[in-house]
């Protein structure tokens, strides 16, 4: 590495690009890649301060000294479709096959805070995830699953506080101790306005709800991560790797700012903030992104917020392979893409991983496809040998140089966003949204010009037979099943108690009090998701997207 005093070898001078396959070589993010990387490319990097050792500041090489030699990453497949009963069976199936954590995908009505019987839910119930309208659904979802023993990740954002409340009440009914519950709530509302766009309330009210969950969990559910700050959707919306990194970490900074302003102790709540990144096709670019993420977070927590607590400085993250990279054409090719992407996540030091299934450009995964994607992780973990040593790519001229480039680029974005007044202001101005749209369009143009290759799509195409793999079909019987349970729930509950608890929630929201306890009380009385969200809509209003 470059800190020795031996003469630094100069990179060989490229004499044009005669004889090379292409006029320029670019990453998936359309970033130029040099012919060769050498000590000159890492001359500015200080081995000790910038790269360091695993388990030590700035954690470039990982947050654990022993890497995966101690414990493998958590294999956490995202699952959810149809009824809670069907999803419950999928959870149990994957757990039997060696999955080590659960992750719930909710359907669109649930993500938007509508019940299955809302007219807006027609055609969508149980389609993109599992349908959950009330505590009764949540009880069916986790039937026979001990919530003290398993960690569950819930992908839910605008109505996250309500689903957290349902989860806690189910745990309580099982006799579990909230102090022993661990798991993760996605609850990242900023990325909804930036990318995924499943919002309900205006940004600042939505941020207040997020802070309510931080405050509540810090006191009552101390082992639970009340947020997973998510770059995944930012990337899927078309961001480059750098934009994913920069916007996600800047979102994280925004949550820390808001938490501190609400009077929370940084070293109590920040250690429970987790992150979620995408793993796209460009192997080294992705690895550099994860390594840079840890280093940037550690430095920002120390230098910007003045923390010296190790738990605050360590960035922990989940990775999911890139759904957007999967192709309808020749779907089995997706098995290979997923394996490469998963390997990047592992070499980048992910703490948990979801591998997509080969059929996901067609529909939600079948049992068989989901099993193969879990097996992909198991093969990487137990056959490939990559988990036998810590950060095997540390010190690579290319990887370290890319890692540094990621850090520098992210800091430029931070400066631009800080100058706008912060992330909420930047989103209100449409800044990250525009940046991402531009990148998405540039990428599409590069594909159509043949500058980027997608095997089976713009190169090596074949006639489609139309029925290459079986797919999962979700029919309208799911909706009928859900409507029936919802009606039974509405008939059986104490209606006055529902009205009373919803009023109490409305008052808490109006007064600016923490809404979590009132939400939990309403959930206990089987107030539905739609009713609870409507109570909050009455107080907060709804968000309108600015034209971009």
């Amino acid at each position, binding site marked *: 590495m470059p800190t020795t005093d031996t003469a630094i070898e100069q990179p060989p001078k490229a004499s044009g690009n005669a004889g090379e396959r292409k006029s320029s070589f670019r990453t998936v993010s359309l970033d130029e890649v040099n012919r060769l990387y050498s000590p000159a490319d890492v001359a500015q990097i200080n081995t000790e301060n910038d790269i360091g050792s695993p388990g030590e500041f700035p954690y470039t090489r990982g947050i654990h000294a022993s890497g995966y030699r101690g414990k493998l990453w958590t294999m956490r497949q995202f699952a959810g479709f149809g009824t809670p009963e069907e999803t419950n069976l999928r959870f149990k199936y994957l757990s039997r096959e060696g999955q080590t954590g659960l992750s719930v995908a909710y359907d*669109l*009505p649930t*993500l*938007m805070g*509508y019940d299955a019987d809302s007219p*807006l*839910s*027609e*055609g*969508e119930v149980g*389609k*993109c995830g599992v349908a959950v309208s009330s505590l009764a659904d949540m009880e069916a979802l986790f039937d026979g699953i001990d919530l003290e023993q398993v960690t569950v990740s819930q992908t839910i954002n605008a109505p996250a506080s309500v689903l957290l409340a349902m989860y806690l009440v189910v745990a309580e009914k099982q006799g579990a101790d909230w102090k022993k519950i661990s798991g993760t709530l996605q609850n990242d509302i900023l990325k*909804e306005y930036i990318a*995924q*766009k*499943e*919002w309900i309330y205006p940004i600042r009210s939505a941020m207040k709800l997020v802070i309510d969950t931080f405050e509540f969990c810090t006191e009552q559910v101390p082992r639970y991560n009340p947020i997973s700050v998510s770059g995944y959707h930012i990337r*899927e*919306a*078309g961001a480059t790797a750098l934009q994913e990194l920069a916007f996600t970490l800047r979102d994280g900074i925004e949550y820390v700012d808001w938490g501190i302003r609400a009077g929370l102790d940084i070293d109590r709540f920040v250690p429970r903030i987790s992150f979620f990144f995408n793993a796209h096709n460009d192997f080294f670019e992705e690895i550099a992104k994860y390594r840079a993420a840890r280093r940037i977070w550690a430095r920002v927590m120390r230098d910007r917020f003045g923390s010296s607590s190790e738990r605050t400085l360590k960035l922990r993250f989940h990775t999911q392979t890139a759904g*957007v990279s999967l*192709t*309808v*054409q020749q779907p089995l090719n997706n098995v290979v893409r997923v394996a490469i992407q998963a390997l990047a996540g592992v070499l980048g030091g992910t703490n948990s991983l979801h591998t997509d299934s080969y059929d996901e*450009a*067609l*529909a939600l995964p079948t049992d068989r496809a989901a099993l193969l994607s879990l097996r992909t992780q198991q093969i990487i973990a137990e056959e490939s040998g990559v988990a036998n040593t810590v950060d095997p790519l540390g010190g690579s001229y290319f990887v370290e140089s890319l890692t540094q480039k990621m850090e520098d680029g992210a800091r430029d974005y931070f400066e631009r966003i800080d100058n706008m007044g912060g992330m909420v202001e930047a989103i209100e101005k449409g800044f990250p949204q525009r940046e991402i*749209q531009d990148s*998405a*369009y540039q990428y*599409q143009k590069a*594909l*159509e010009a043949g500058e980027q290759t*997608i095997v089976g*799509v*713009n190169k090596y195409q074949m006639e489609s037979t*139309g*029925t290459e793999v079986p*797919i999962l*079909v*979700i029919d309208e019987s799911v909706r009928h099943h859900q409507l029936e349970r919802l009606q039974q729930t509405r008939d059986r509950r104490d209606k006055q108690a529902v009205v009373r608890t919803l009023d109490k929630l409305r008052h808490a929201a109006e007064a600016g009090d923490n809404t979590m306890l009132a939400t939990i009380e309403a959930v206990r009385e089987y107030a539905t998701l739609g009713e609870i969200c409507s109570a909050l809509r009455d107080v907060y209003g709804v968000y309108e*997207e600015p*034209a971009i």
Partner: protein
Amino acid sequence: MAQAERKIRVLVAKPGLDGHDRGAKVIARALRDAGMEVIYTGLRQTPEMIAAAALQEDVDAVGVSILSGAHNTLCPRIVSLLREQGMKDTLVVLGGIVPQEDIPKLKEQGVAEIFLPGTSTQDIAKFIRENVRPRE
């Protein structure tokens, strides 16, 4: 040509609850670059809102983007609302995640073409250009 050609007008529409608008926005921009006038509805439009916008904007084509699996419910309704309000020739195309089995039925119900992931935006522009009915 002596006369300025009327530009093809396209409504890009995103019905249902899904917020994934990458595709809709990329297509809107690509069609504009291909010389068409494009109106984007924004997110979460009901079939009624889409049909009303199509009439008001007097479009030649409606491009619907759906990834959520709700296409069998939403598309036929959009087509029949357009036809009910007299837009007999308005071309309706669909882009998104659509299983092969659903395609023949959607076509029977009046969707002119279904573009699956991986389709080039140039192919979509070409299809629209070749299939919109010329107006008097």
